[in-house]
């Protein structure tokens, strides 16, 4: 099994909400000071999905990241978890793309890597939360896509995927090659091992520029965007919380019940 996993470096989505700031003059997010970026959590779980298949059936896992200012400590995490190779699409020309320019560049890189049975992505990136790049890559490559997978088993040139539905899940069989996006219900991603961290330190990523993947520069980064962000803003949450105090839990509970009754909530 040859597997390619797309991993995005993002602003830590679990950073305290109070640290989140937007620069409204540029419509961009100001990275919170002192909080390092991370691999988008669903992408880490996509790595986990690939590693589970590798553990069971053998194979090769290549992590693929696109961006600028990619911190080696961050983007090497898949290697320290057990991935075999790391390919970076790192160039200013790739910067500030949208789902279309990103899917195009990743698909071009995947074509260059060439040999694959499964391409994994996270269900959505934890920054723009769109969840379109995976389906886009599959469409460009002309292969089937299955989204929101929580379990994947492979055999006989097929994958059997448990995919979330509104009220449970469904089991779908797909002929490989295919693209699969992974949801958190898959379970936690493994921690890097000491051995893995050492191996990742020694391993140098392969870095490709647009020309290396034969990308049309009009289709990548800002130039390749189809969508425009005309405004980025922080919605105002009115904080008018009334904290209910009292001498003991019974007292507090009684006061709350009274308030809720007065307000006709219960």
């Amino acid at each position, binding site marked *: 099994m040859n597997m390619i996993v797309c991993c995005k470096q993002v*602003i830590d989505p679990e950073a*305290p*909400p109070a640290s*989140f700031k*937007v620069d409204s003059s540029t*419509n961009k997010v100001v990275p919170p000071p002192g909080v390092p970026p991370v691999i988008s959590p669903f992408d880490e779980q996509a790595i986990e999905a690939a590693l589970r298949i590798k553990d069971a059936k053998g194979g090769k896992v290549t992590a693929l990241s696109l961006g600028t200012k990619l911190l080696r400590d961050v983007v090497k995490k898949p290697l320290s978890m057990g991935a075999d190779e790391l390919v970076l699409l790192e160039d200013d020309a790739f910067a500030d793309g*949208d*789902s*279309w320019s990103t*899917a195009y560049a990743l698909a071009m890189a995947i074509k260059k890597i060439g040999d694959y049975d499964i391409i994994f992505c996270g269900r959505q990136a*934890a*920054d*723009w*939360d*769109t*969840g*379109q790049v995976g*389906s*886009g890559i599959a*469409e460009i490559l002309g292969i*089937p*896509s*299955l*989204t929101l997978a*929580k379990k994947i088993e492979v055999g006989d040139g097929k994958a059997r995927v448990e*995919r*979330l539905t*509104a*009220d*449970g899940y*469904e*089991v*779908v069989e*797909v*002929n490989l090659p*295919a693209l699969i996006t992974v949801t*958190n*219900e898959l379970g936690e991603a493994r921690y890097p091992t000491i051995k893995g961290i050492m191996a990742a330190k020694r391993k140098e990523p392969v870095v490709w520029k647009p020309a290396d993947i034969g990308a049309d520069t009009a289709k990548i980064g800002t130039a390749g965007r*189809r*969508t*425009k*962000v005309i405004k*980025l*803003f*922080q919605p105002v949450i009115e904080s008018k*919380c*009334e*904290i*209910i105090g009292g001498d003991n*839990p*019974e007292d*507090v*509970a*009684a006061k*709350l*019940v009274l308030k*809720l*009754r007065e307000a006709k*909530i*219960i």
Partner: protein
Amino acid sequence: MSDYKGVMIYGEVTEGKLSSIAKELLGCGRKIASDLGQQLSAVLVGSGVGGLAQETIASGADKVYIVDNPLLKDYQTETYVPVMEKVVKQVMPQVVLLGQTTIGRDLAPRLSFRLGTAATMDCVALAIDPASKRLLQTKPVFGGNAQAIFTYDSDPQIATVRAKVMSPMEPDASRKGEVITIDASLDPSTIKTKVLQQVKEEVTGIKLEDAAVIVSGGRGIGGAEGFKQLAELAEVLKGAVGASRPACDSGWMPETAQVGLTGKIVTPNFYLAVGISGSSQHLAGCSNAKTIVAINKDPEANIFKAARYGIVGDWKQVLPAFTKKVKELLAK
């Protein structure tokens, strides 16, 4: 570009019924269509869906396109994308709206790539720009910490819409509309996927999406045992039990109970958040509740920013006392 006209909604059918999100889309599509001075159409795809056309018209559609075929019994990317591609190319709507559901999340991106246009996912507001007549699409980003307004120049403009943010129309059975059948034109030999099994998580009692009261627990609950106490209170209040993602990931609650950006969007009258810190991703699923009440031992917890009332304290002491008082009150 000017060849594209009208607004189309994708009418999701669940268990043989027109889904609530479909009615919400009809409600919001109606407004957009009238702002554009154009018609609103709906497309129903599935097996045995033709009978829903009249209800779809009553809920706001001027035209209903029906694609009915046994091969379309279950949603599959491999069959629904080509069907929607065919419908859109035939009808040429300027705007296509879908629900941000497990189906819409899958269908909209692949369809937009196939059609060579773009899509905006999980919109919470849609409006026509008076000057350009283009669709302004507002969507929460960065887990709900911010919102972005998107536009683009290609047609059709595709957007998925978050559940429960748009209001359905009052159904009007006397409304008249046109019903048009479109052939699916599917070749079974080209379908590379097969649905082997559908598994439904059994929910006892009230569904989260329909509940007027939700008692929700987070990592602070500490285990499945604690959720029994939440369930007891929920029962007294005739509500349902929800959970944050860590509580589901830890197996304390089934994954279908997850509230938030990647779980359920809920709009109860009363949302009690117990041992939940109030991350932006969690609030994305519950911030439209009428009243949020939080019990948390950390006075700085972000949940108090969204709450109307708060109790700072250990839930293990506060909750049993609260349940007792509620029981006393309701027994009166």
